[in-house]
């Protein structure tokens, strides 16, 4: 065992709407650890750098393999999943902050309801009106499948909106993830039945027109989803609808 240590600076908050404060923790170094394993170590022995026993740090995690998106936080200033943030690849002291675009529940746990509300707004589902046998579905060609599969990897983690300068606590922008999901379901053979309803949501307040083209979303997406391509594609679909409705009224 080496006597190396890992230093964390964590932005903590005791509850919703409470003031936040920084707290430092120094824990023994273990090889191949990630941010979550270190948070677990802090949880077992919650003593801060001043030797004071404090309330254990709260965070959320689930899959531990970067597919659920739950453990997203701001690590050393950048938004990412803490499960795939390996200590050996991080500069110390490691700073941990909750996502800044969502209300903090406690410490590093945030309430990302707004993202799920955005998915509801764009109707990111395939409409079904019953459980009866609808027969075989449409054939899906491999090139379509390739695009759709990539889009379906979105885990609503919040990285895209966290890095977005257009997405803020006091506006109602849908964000890149929801726009990309609207694209996914608009290309689905059954999902496209309500394509125009999705476009109407995208063309509403805080919809696709609120995008400012900073393109941070595509840079920080942990799943490398072509978000700017999705935004451009939905921009094209809404442009078509824009001209159509303009000359129908």
């Amino acid at each position: 065992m080496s006597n190396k240590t890992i230093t964390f600076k964590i932005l903590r908050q005791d509850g919703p709407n409470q003031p936040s404060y920084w707290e430092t923790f120094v824990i023994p170094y273990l090889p191949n650890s990630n941010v979550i394993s270190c948070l677990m170590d802090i949880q077992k022995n919650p003593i801060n750098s001043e030797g004071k026993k404090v309330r254990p740090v709260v965070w959320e995690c689930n899959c531990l393999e970067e597919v659920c998106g739950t453990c997203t936080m701001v690590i050393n200033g950048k938004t990412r999943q803490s499960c795939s943030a390996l200590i050996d690849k991080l500069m110390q002291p490691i700073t941990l902050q909750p996502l800044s675009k969502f209300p903090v529940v406690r410490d590093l746990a945030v309430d990302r309801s707004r993202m799920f509300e955005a998915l509801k707004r764009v109707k990111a589902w395939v409409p079904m009106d019953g459980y009866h046998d609808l027969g075989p579905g449409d054939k899906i060609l491999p090139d379509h499948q390739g695009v759709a599969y990539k889009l379906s990897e979105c885990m609503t983690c919040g990285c895209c909106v966290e890095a977005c300068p257009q997405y803020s606590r006091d506006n109602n922008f849908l964000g890149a993830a929801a726009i990309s999901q609207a694209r996914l379901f608009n290309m689905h053979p059954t999902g496209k039945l309500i394509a125009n309803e999705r476009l109407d949501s995208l063309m509403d307040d805080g919809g696709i027109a609120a995008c400012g083209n900073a393109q941070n979303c595509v840079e920080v997406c942990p799943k490398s989803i072509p978000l700017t391509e999705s935004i451009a594609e939905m921009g094209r679909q809404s442009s078509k609808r824009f001209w159509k409705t303009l000359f129908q009224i």
Partner: protein
Amino acid sequence: MNSHFFARRVHSLTGIIPVGLFLVYHLYTQLYLHQGAEKYNEHTNAFYDSPLAIWLLIIFVYIPLFYHSILGAKLSIEATPQPSYHYFSHLLYWLQRISGIGVLLFIFAHLYNTKVMPLMTDTYGQHFEHLAEGFASAETGWLTKSVYLLGILGATFHFANGINTFCMTWGLALTPRAQLRVRVLSIIVFVLLTAVALYSMSAIW
């Protein structure tokens, strides 16, 4: 579609048509600076002598420019800084906003220099002389030159980068490859327009 969407699409459109096209035309006419005072004034006054000139300016320049500036300034103020994300497109995003506000301020100075001041001194029509005197002034020449240089650079950048975001907004360039092509195009436009503008300015530098 609602007013939020409509307002922003009109904002995007007015930036290229007609304001962007006006910029290109305006930079083209400044090439007359190289043909001397007489030719330059003759050409410029020929436009203003037309009874339609004022209406053309109001409909195709002042109103769209006013709309584009007001909404653009509002959107710029509402943006949330994300200082820890150092990506090229993100840099362009902020430069677009800073240059937009900078160019708006420049336009006020420019209008004062070429319209308000000549009208007040009753020397309107001597366009070449006003520009050349402003540039040659011993006390404030350096300031005028710097302001024009920054204003022109800001305008050509804002327009060139605007072509890029326009193609993204309207869905003209979809794939990352297509977006790269548009970016290359916008760089060419930026370099060409800036070169033309600097060449024109060299006549009275």
